[in-house]
């Protein structure tokens, strides 16, 4: 169970004890040895998960916003861009909980709608980025050699290229842009970080005895990756997804803010964009720009803190008693 190597990536070495995953997948040699303890290990992880304040606090904040995304639209009578939902530049009131914009639109309606697009972009964009990162990272890390060199170079190139330039071309082509294309765009441009992290982790796993054993018994490469390597870093993959998820939220906010986001839906970045364009900061209409940014900060911050908690749950070395 103890691991000798210390990796240099931020959230690393947090893998499940080697053996659990093998047993589940039925890799015979490990199964016999480990099976009796599987139940105990599972409940141990659950125990630490439920007693980890970081995980609980971070998780509940994210959950709270997720609930608000679904319940929110039922609580407001106005559409996000509907005019005449209240007075212009009105502060929060019983009728407009979060006040109104310069155009008399309801800020709460925009906020709730923006939350929806935020989570949608994050799930699709973050998921896609993790998926591409996994494909590239596993292949590069497991194959090594020339394949690794080429993929590494590709990763570094995508990392450095200013993605805004690419986005401008796409933005010019599509008059009406939806959330989906923004999510796809984020997914296709933000995977390098995940690829690097997963590659490094795969690299440290690929010469372990159980992987060698699988290779000796003639198991195909992709099967080794998916049955031997991936399960042993499943917690790491999950945490990578959470980071990509949070990252996608921040990127989407930036894109929306410079006016390159979806054109047909409300978004939190777009709210800040219009607030700044109509001088809400200089005129002190705080109710217009405080909620969208606060929501992003709390959601992403909650995700990060949740990740630290998860790291402690999965990695016994980090637990504090």
């Amino acid at each position, binding site marked *: 169970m103890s691991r*000798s190597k*210390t*990796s*240099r*990536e*931020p*959230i*690393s*070495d947090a893998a499940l004890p080697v053996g659990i995953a093998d047993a589940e997948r039925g890799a015979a040699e490990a199964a016999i040895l480990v099976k009796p303890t599987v139940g105990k290990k599972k409940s141990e992880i659950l125990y630490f998960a439920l007693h980890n304040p970081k995980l609980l606090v971070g998780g509940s904040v994210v959950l709270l916003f997720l609930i608000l995304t679904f319940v929110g639209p039922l609580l407001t009578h106005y559409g996000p861009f509907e005019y005449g939902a209240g007075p212009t530049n009105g502060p929060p009131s019983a009728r407009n909980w979060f006040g109104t914009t310069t155009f008399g639109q309801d800020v709460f309606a925009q906020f709730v709608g923006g939350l929806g697009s935020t989570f949608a972009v994050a799930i699709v964009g973050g998921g896609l980025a993790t998926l591409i990162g996994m494909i590239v990272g596993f292949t590069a890390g497991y194959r090594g050699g020339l394949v690794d060199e080429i993929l590494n*170079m590709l990763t*570094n*190139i995508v*990392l*450095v*290229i*200013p993605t*805004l*330039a*690419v986005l*401008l*071309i796409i933005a*010019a*082509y599509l008059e009406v842009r939806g959330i989906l294309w923004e999510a796809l765009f984020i997914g296709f441009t933000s995977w390098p*970080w995940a690829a*690097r992290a997963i590659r*490094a982790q795969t690299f440290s796993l690929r010469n372990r005895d159980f992987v060698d054993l699988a290779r000796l018994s003639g198991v195909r490469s992709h099967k080794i990756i998916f049955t031997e390597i991936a399960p042993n870093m499943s917690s790491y993959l999950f945490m990578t997804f959470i980071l990509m998820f*949070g990252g996608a939220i*921040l990127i989407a*906010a*930036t894109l929306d*803010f*410079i*006016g*390159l986001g979806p054109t047909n839906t409300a978004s939190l*970045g777009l709210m*800040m964009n219009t*607030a*700044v364009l109509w001088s809400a*900061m*200089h005129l*002190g209409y*705080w109710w217009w*720009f*405080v909620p*969208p*940014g*606060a929501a*992003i*900060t*709390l*959601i*992403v*911050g909650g*995700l*990060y*803190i949740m990740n*630290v908690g998860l790291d402690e749950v999965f990695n016994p*070395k*980090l637990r*504090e008693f």
Partner: protein
Amino acid sequence: MRRYFGRKLLTYGLTFFLAVTIDWLIPRFMPGNPVSSMVARAQVRPEIAERLVDYYNQLYGFNESIITQYFNFWKSLFQGDLGTSIFVFGQPVTNVIMDALPYTLGLLLPAILLSWVAGNKFGAFAARSKYLDNTLLPVGYVLTATPYMWLGIILGWSLGLKFGWFPISGAYSFSLRPALSWKFITDALLHWFLPFFSLFLVMFGGWAIGMRNMIIYELEADYSHYLEALGAPRKLIRKYAFRNAVLPQLTGLALQLGVIVAGALVTEIVFGYPGLGLLVLNSIQNQDYFLLQGIFLFIIAGVLIANFLIDVAYVLVDPRTRIGMTGGTA
């Protein structure tokens, strides 16, 4: 070491080539004819418009074949000629950008360097200290989760508007002209502070947390335990852990550059600070694609140069790269 730099330079060369090609595509693949739509926006009489279209077509060589256009683009690029701006009428793009560049660099460089140094020191200090870990580090996480423009808006609204300590738009007061007088310098510094500070804070949170996590891993490494067993002083172990933990932080800086630059651009927009970010917004709104093209070239070049400097720093800090082993993941 030669191998290390050779590989790096190959990556940078390829990146530059690809990025420039994408950049070249911007005005060419815009729907409709960019020249005629730009001229239409200038709202001049038809006969003048016709001549303008001719002029611009000739200027940008749009009447030649695509391949020739592409090579001409590279040729003029090396001559430092990026075309003529539409938004700032008749000015060469290079001049327009050169006017804005100092403001962006003046924000970015101090913010990056100071936040990196301060964040690393603070993160190392907070690691494994129970009190700081539980009180100040959540603050760090919230800071790094804050969208750059939002922190800018909030600081501008609170410190600028409510308390009136700092001005919140432009780089200096309208009544002043740039000069080397105390009055102008203090005025410019006051205008500079809020955009700088909001960039600094967001980055500081990120570096502090990165360092804290890294130090914890290093303190759990075998060499730390060994030193501990030998009875080495706590301070010495920490020093070694810090040195090892700085390497991935350096890599992190290289990885984060794109995000940081985007952060600076939106922060400038919030404060109306006349750097490249405001220029990007203006050229998007005015469909000044040639200016946009020029700005991105500068950003690409800047990011590549910064990456190269970080690589050099890596060689200085990590002896393994010097003797030919490929150390770290930079």
